[in-house]
């Protein structure tokens, strides 16, 4: 166990000497996909609750597709499936994009988390207090101002508990990245396992690292909730 740690602590945490690996890679995957997913899901969630059918429907179809299929298959399609198409390889730009495992992985993860986040935000917009919107309209706010100053700030705050769940689920989902040869924590654990045959210890170390990140994220989100959801707490 000690030898295993001595030999593998560096790849487990940040680098194998050549590439970024382990914890640093997992955190990069997580933050990149969460950031893209968050930014794209805001306009999508507004479209999702639109009264116009042809605005709402494409978004609904997208979330239905990505929430109804496993992330592993989405990753396989992005990484091996798309690149196996002749048309993609013929296009220089697409070819260089899909040849890189990192691009495919982040694309698949971002698309996946964006679908879940869109539904979370759309739910929060839908459960918006009608009085709040009426008051905003009475003040003369319309169009994007209504959304930017009243609806979205309120909806994003109220979706914080659900959003924190989604971020933690996404952290857990990043483990499939190793199937696309991305050297995340689990990949290092597998390498350690096949080199030393210390199965329980190798995967155990990975499990402990993931557990620590989970607890850290839970703690951070609790702080965020205390700050942004203070108005929902008991009156002082």
């Amino acid at each position: 166990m000690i030898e295993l740690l001595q030999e593998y602590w560096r790849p487990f945490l940040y680098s194998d000497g050549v590439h970024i690996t382990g914890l640093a890679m997992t955190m990069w995957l997580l933050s990149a996909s969460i950031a893209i997913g968050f930014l794209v899901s805001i306009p999508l969630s507004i479209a999702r609750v639109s009264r116009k059918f042809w605005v709402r429907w494409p978004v609904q179809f997208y979330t239905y597709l990505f929430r109804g299929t496993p992330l592993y298959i989405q990753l396989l399609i992005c990484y091996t499936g798309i690149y196996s198409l002749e048309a993609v390889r013929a296009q220089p730009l697409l070819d260089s994009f899909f040849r890189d495992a990192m691009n495919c992985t982040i694309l698949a993860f971002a698309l996946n988390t964006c679908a879940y986040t869109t539904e979370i935000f759309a739910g929060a917009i839908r459960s918006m207090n009608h009085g709040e919107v009426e008051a905003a309209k009475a003040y003369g706010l319309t169009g994007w101002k209504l959304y930017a100053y009243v609806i979205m700030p309120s909806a994003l705050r109220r979706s914080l508990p659900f959003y924190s769940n989604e971020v933690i689920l996404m952290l857990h989902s990043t483990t499939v990245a190793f199937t696309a040869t991305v050297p995340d924590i689990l990949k290092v654990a597998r390498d350690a396992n096949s080199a030393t045959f210390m199965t329980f210890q190798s995967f155990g170390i990975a499990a402990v690292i993931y557990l620590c990140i989970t607890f850290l994220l839970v703690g951070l989100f609790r702080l965020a909730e205390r700050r942004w959801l203070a108005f929902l707490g008991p009156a002082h």
Partner: protein
Amino acid sequence: MFETLLQTLGLARFSLKGFGPLLLEGTWMTIKLSLLSLLLSIVLGLIGAGAKLSSAAVLRVPAQLYTTLIRGVPDLVLMLLIFYSLQTWLSQLTDAMGWDYIEIDAFSAGVVTLGFIYGAYFTETFRGAILSVPRGQVEAATAYGLSRGQRFRFVVFPQMMRYALPGIGNNWQVLLKATALVSIIGLADLVKAAQDAGKSTYQLFYFLVLAALIYLLITSASNVALRWAERRYAAGSREAQR
């Protein structure tokens, strides 16, 4: 039959190239695996919820540890950890006991692993649901002279199910999608079948999309079933009029 249909429709490029039976087998494997692990995890969840709500710390503390640890670690990590260690532990046990060597096959190891992991999620679902049953219901049942077992079977359980169903539905969807990962530990499920078929026909994209559509079909069908069950268990409850 399916092949001739494709031929007559002029969709020969969507032919399964003889991999239809393999895909069906993989689908059946996925369904079998997820249903059996669902069963195991519901049983574990009920036991865990009982232990977590118990007044004895001997039961409460291990259950708390179980749910916190399992839910804090990614399912794939646990899957690899348990799956590869299970045989070692079993061999050590049989050695220590002087029994014959028992070999566990990949399928039952997969069921045990998935069931054990999702048992932790079900524990939380059932604990929340049991807590949602009004206290007066149990008190009334006690007043009628029902025993502990009868109280659970006739009073708490039917009411608990209504609160638990949305959670059960969620967990089932997550569990079903998690079974896609068992191909990583070498089980011949739908994903593995699609990959094999795709690699040997050089139509990886087509077969993977096909697998995704099959998953979509299963999740959509279970959504319909769950909505039906929610209506059934909501009998006698009234939604607030807004």
